């Protein structure tokens, strides 16, 4: 190690400024080598004077700040290498404090609020208006945002109806739709005005969205609802709130499209305005036959393709289950219809004849549509079978469809 001579210093009575002396003391207390500090700041000062004379004070100051930032890591590294444990601890504390301060300043800068710049109706920006399906008064939520999208807690927003159907608008932007039609409402805050359209589509009757059967892997389908307005005509402009009770079985996207995920059943709550209804979704697992079904395979569907004279015999599980046939291979059989009449061991109807045998009894239900079969069965012991055959002479030469089985707990 080569010993370095200490730099000659000039006291405050000389040309060295108080600020520079203070900076030196702080950095030396953090472990910096006094000689290095004297050299670095001396060079910066000398070149700053030179640049000020040739390039101007502003340019020189910019250069000075840039050089301080660029030299900072070297000075810190020098302090880490040369400083005592106490000085290193002070350096760590200073660095942490600087980082925290910088982070707080950054957060404050990013999250600062500006003047009102945008009015947004509801949770999202309804560029094509707000749909009101309720007959009761509805509280609309208006949000005041600044240019950066920060929500302002300002509440002095004023509203008034500008045109369209007559709807009462209170100061708290509560609207009441008594008839079908559109109205334009103006919201004002400070110098900001925003007109938004309210589509009044009150619903008198909402019918159940019914049963929706899927096979695992099938593409999503739109969940349709049957809403009737005060005038008796269907309402097509709807703002609905949909909820699936088990989103591991099926999910709903923002457009009301239902996507099956795994075998099972789930309920869907449909809330439109002040009306509520429900729907059920059953997702079946595709299997080749009913042979070798595991106990956990509760919802299964198998393809059926029979030519005249051909038949199939498959074992059935014990317990209660629905057994349904659909002549359309592209559709899952509709299970769980309404119980109609008692059947015998023969539950056949054209074009397919279904016969059960063994320790089993079945109740036949009305066909969901012509050519389909739906039964509810109880197999009391192992050994029950179902026999599937194409109906006798005069019928079809072949049939393509699917047989669904829904086991009940």
């Amino acid at each position, binding site marked *: 190690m080569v010993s*370095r001579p200490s*730099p000659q210093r*000039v006291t405050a009575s000389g040309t060295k400024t108080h600020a520079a002396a203070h900076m030196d003391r702080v950095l030396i207390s953090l472990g910096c080598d006094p000689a290095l500090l004297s050299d670095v700041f*001396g*060079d910066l000062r000398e070149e700053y004077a030179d640049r000020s004379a040739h390039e101007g004070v502003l340019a020189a100051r910019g250069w000075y700040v840039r050089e301080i930032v*660029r*030299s900072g890591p070297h000075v810190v590294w020098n302090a880490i290498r040369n400083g005592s444990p106490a000085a290193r601890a002070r350096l760590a504390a200073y660095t942490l404090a600087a980082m925290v301060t910088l982070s707080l300043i950054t957060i404050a800068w990013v999250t600062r609020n500006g003047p009102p710049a945008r009015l947004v109706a509801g949770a999202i920006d309804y560029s094509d208006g707000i749909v009101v399906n309720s007959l009761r008064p509805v509280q609309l939520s208006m949000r005041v945002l600044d240019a950066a999208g920060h929500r302002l807690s300002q509440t002095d927003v004023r509203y008034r109806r500008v045109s369209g159907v007559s709807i009462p608008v209170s100061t708290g932007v509560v609207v009441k739709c008594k008839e079908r039609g559109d109205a334009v409402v103006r919201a004002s805050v400070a110098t900001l005005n925003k007109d938004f359209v309210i589509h009044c589509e009150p619903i008198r009757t909402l019918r159940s969205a019914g049963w929706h059967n899927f096979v695992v892997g099938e593409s999503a389908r739109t969940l349709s609802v049957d809403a009737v307005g005060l005038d008796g005509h269907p309402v097509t402009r709807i703002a609905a709130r949909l909820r699936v009770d088990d989103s591991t079985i099926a999910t709903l996207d923002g457009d009301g499209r239902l996507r099956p995920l795994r075998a099972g059943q789930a309920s869907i709550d449909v809330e439109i305005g002040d009306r509520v209804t429900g729907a059920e979704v059953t997702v079946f697992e595709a299997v080749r036959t009913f042979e070798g079904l595991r106990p956990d395979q509760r919802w299964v569907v198998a393809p059926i393709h029979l030519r005249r004279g051909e038949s199939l015999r498959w074992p059935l599980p014990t317990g209660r289950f629905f057994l349904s046939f659909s002549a359309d291979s592209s559709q899952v059989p509709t299970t769980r219809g309404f119980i109609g009449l008692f059947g015998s061991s023969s539950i056949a109807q054209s074009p397919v004849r279904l016969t059960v045998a063994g320790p089993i009894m079945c109740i036949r239900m009305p066909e969901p549509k012509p050519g389909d079969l739906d039964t509810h069965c109880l197999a009391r012991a192992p050994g029950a079978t179902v026999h599937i055959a194409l109906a006798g002479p005069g019928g079809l030469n072949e049939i393509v469809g699917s047989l669904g089985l829904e086991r009940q707990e």
Partner: protein
Amino acid sequence: MRRHDLFYKLGVMPTATLGTLELAALLAVARLGNDAYGLAIRRDLASRTGRDYSVGAVYTTLQRLEDKGLLTSRHSNPLPVRGGRSRRHFALTGAGARALREAERHAASIWAGVGKTLRPRLA
């Protein structure tokens, strides 16, 4: 081709013990003689290499060279233009001069046999 391009591409390859900036700083001190202090060395490096090294980087390098015994330094009287601080003048030690000669030999051995057309003319 500019001088600093030659300097980098062909003339001065780092030796086993000296880094590129260390070697460049040693050469700058050798060139500047009695005027070899931090600001002058930094300007010399900038003009020859085309790179604007920070003040901290240059002094860290010079200090490292002094620690290795390749440079020695002395302080001038305090100067008003430096805010009352003194200049630190550097000079090559005997070990520093040997290191430069070794670096030159090293570069020459690397370039040996390349041919006159490719051989750089170090100014």
